[in-house]
């Protein structure tokens, strides 16, 4: 902070807990006018919680909250808005069916004395604003017809030009192409000259270092470092984020881990030059029998799209995939399953039937094998019971509605469903997300068993720990392209982060 200047926003000793778990512990944070403040930290480190407090989303917390030196307490996001604070959330929140101009002026369209919208004025001003941002689109075009990256830029533009004094950007660059990122940065710098205070959250540490003046690092709900961005480096920030030498968490994977020599068993999946709109660019790789292939990348790097293509839910724009040497274009998920591919998506809600008993959830994938026409409930229950025992699903009652199981046990049911009918290729998205240590270990052991049985397994995750704990070989996906392969070499969390 430049000396002698009063911070526009100052937080002192902020503590916030969710149901007994402390998300923030005694955090101090200050923001000056004309400053771009970068924020880094792992998922769950507390960055987003702090920003939601500033934006009036979380209103219950302890600590002092000052704006222009005045103690304030927001009761809602509206209060924060009135105080000149605006936030762009990570998920796109636009109205795709309205025009570009309507989106730019959402909530405060210019009206005449009769209260009618002044369309021409709105279109002209929206066009001017976007042009300053380097966006050249017809303001009367339907927003949803534009590419996602452009939609995101327009949403950011709306917030940046809303006249807010404090602007918070949460992961604004994940869906943007390099030239779009440049435009965004140019605009941020211009706003900085006009005295706007900007908070910039990103996983892309290069971006943070390039655009921000000050970087703050969060770890486990604490602020662990605050430094001028000219005085630090990517390596130093990663170290601060994951806490080398500091508090050592179990399986923190800070130390190097030796990956085995790549297996030379048969190739189960061969992906060649796969591409999908803005999500994937020329992705090529192979997955082998008896091997766990980890694919690591940040949120929005294209993992989700890749997994959906492998399971026939999305159709690629280009490229080929072959299973067991046979080229395939899956017309449906049913076709992918017949070819021996199975997918466990990141959301359990998307793959399980919460209002149906456990055994029906498990048997659904094998019904076609055990019954031609008539169901065989006794056999279904037997199969389910075997799986429940093997995977130690609790409580071990196959007649219980799935919704009554804990998240970890539900995840085991999701796996059990495919184990009754072992696929050749098992694609797991975020297989251990949100689980306690015990359930996590169970899942890890199940995956290792399956590997031993000769399945080809692909684990996609945005958590480095998940990939490191499971994979024999690791690919790093960055903005839709494979940028690094780790095989037969030492790897660690900071090397993964470095590559991504």
């Amino acid at each position, binding site marked *: 902070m430049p000396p002698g200047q009063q911070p526009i926003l100052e937080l002192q000793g902020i503590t916030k807990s969710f149901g007994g778990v402390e998300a923030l512990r005694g955090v101090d944070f200050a923001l000056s006018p004309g400053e771009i403040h970068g924020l880094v930290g792992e998922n769950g480190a507390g960055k987003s919680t702090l920003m939601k407090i500033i934006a009036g989303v979380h209103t219950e917390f302890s600590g002092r909250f000052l704006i222009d030196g005045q103690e304030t307490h927001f009761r809602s996001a509206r209060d924060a808005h009135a105080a000149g604070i605006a936030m762009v959330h990570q998920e796109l929140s636009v109205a795709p069916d309205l025009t570009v101009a309507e989106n730019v002026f959402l909530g405060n369209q210019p009206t005449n004395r009769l209260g009618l919208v002044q369309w021409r004025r709105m279109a002209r001003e929206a066009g001017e604003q976007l042009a300053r941002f380097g966006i050249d689109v017809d303001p009367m075009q339907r927003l949803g017809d534009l590419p996602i990256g452009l939609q995101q830029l327009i949403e950011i533009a709306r917030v940046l030009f809303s006249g807010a004094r404090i602007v918070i950007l949460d992961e604004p660059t994940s869906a943007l192409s390099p030239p779009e990122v440049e435009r965004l940065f140019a605009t941020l710098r211009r706003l900085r000259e006009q005295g706007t205070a900007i908070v910039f959250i990103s996983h892309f540490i290069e971006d943070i270092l390039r655009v921000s003046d000050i970087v703050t690092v969060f770890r486990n709900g604490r602020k662990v470092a605050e430094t001028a961005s000219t005085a630090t480096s990517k390596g130093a920030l990663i170290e601060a984020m994951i806490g080398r030498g500091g508090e050592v968490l179990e399986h923190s994977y800070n130390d190097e881990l030796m990956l085995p020599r790549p297996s030379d068993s048969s190739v189960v999946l061969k992906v060649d030059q796969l591409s999908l709109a803005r999500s994937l660019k020329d992705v090529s790789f192979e997955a082998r029998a008896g091997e766990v292939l980890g694919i690591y990348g940040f949120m929005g790097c294209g993992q989700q799209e890749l997994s959906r293509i492998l399971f026939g*839910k999305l159709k690629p724009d280009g490229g080929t995939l072959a299973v067991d040497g046979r080229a395939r274009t899956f017309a*449906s*998920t049913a076709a992918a399953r017949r070819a021996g591919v*199975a997918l466990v*998506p990141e959301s359990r809600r998307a793959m399980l039937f919460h209002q149906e*008993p456990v055994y029906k959830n498990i048997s659904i994938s094998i*019904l076609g094998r055990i019954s031609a026409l008539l169901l065989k409930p006794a056999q279904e229950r037997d199969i389910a019971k075997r799986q429940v025992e093997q995977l130690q699903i609790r409580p071990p009652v196959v*007649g219980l509605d799935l919704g009554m199981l804990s998240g970890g046990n539900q995840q085991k049911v999701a796996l059990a469903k495919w184990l009754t009918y072992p696929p050749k290729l098992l694609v797991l998205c975020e297989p251990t997300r949100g689980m306690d240590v015990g359930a996590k270990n169970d899942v890890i052991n199940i995956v290792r068993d399956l590997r031993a049985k000769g399945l080809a397994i692909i684990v996609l995750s945005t958590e480095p720990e998940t990939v490191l704990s499971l994979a024999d070989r690791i690919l790093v996906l960055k903005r839709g392209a494979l940028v690094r392969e780790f095989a037969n070499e030492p790897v660690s969390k900071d090397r993964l982060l470095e590559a991504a």
Partner: protein
Amino acid sequence: MASSETALAAGQRARGLAPFLRSQMRNIAPFLTLIFLSAFFAFASPSFATLDNLGNILTQVSVTGIIAVGLTFVILCAEIDLSIASIANVTGIAVAYFTLQESYVNIPNIPLPGAAAILLAILLCAALGFVNALGLTVIGIPSFIMTLAMMQIAAGISALLVRGQIAYKVPGVITTLGSGSVSGIPWIVIVAAIMLLGGHLVLTYTRFGRYVYMVGGNREAAEYSGLNVKLILGVVMVISAVCSGIGGMLGVAHFGSAQQNEFDTYLLDSIAAVVVGGTSLFGGRGGIGNTIVGLFVLGVLNNGLDHVNIDSFLKILIRGLILLAALVINVYAQRLREKAVE
């Protein structure tokens, strides 16, 4: 459903009777409505609670029942079919169109042997159902809109076939099944009972039936389980159309005539029967058992109101209010159940 019901019961009883009853609200409420309505009319009118009148009620709900079998499949998948009444109508008209009419019927029709007429009529309704299926699954038109269009298309075909005239004759088998009876029991009641039973067996004991519940319960999960969701939805639309067609043919024989707009009231009655019975509009919950209870609620209501001395214009309003109450219970039961599970 028996096995899953007991499993479910076992699961929920462990946590007390109240949550169990709450989760079963969907099945209990329509039953209570039926008992309440029957008791009320039995008390209000001496002519209501007689064996003869029970026969009347059964006959009155038969055509609705036949149509509702297919509709139950559709609603279990969280879709809707608004073309059922029109398809019933056009199938009834088609079977008459292919039958030799009396000389005073002025329709330029094509007389064929009875079996051929029936076969062509069934093919027609199956084809219309197939078009519904294509629109819904291949093109991706929401079923509400797709079947709304089909409603018009089927009505249009009906209009072209009869050209404002009325046909009377249908093949002998259809006449017998629609208006004949065996040892005092109308054939149409027997057909309705067999079709309802068949629908129940398919939904409960076959793999296809299980898939219907799974697709309705969580379509995304069904797709992620590798089910061919589009195929299942398509088959369900064809089943619905064929059931409607059978209902239409027997209906024509039952009424003794085939003409335009003859089945218009059956659209709302069939939807009402399925939903009042407690099958969830959100899919995945309910079944033919529920539909049967719903049919009786509707039948008792329509029949009972004729036995008591009420302004006939008021009857329409009362029917509407009772249907509204049933819908409120339907949505509310869904919410209670979701709470019980989560």
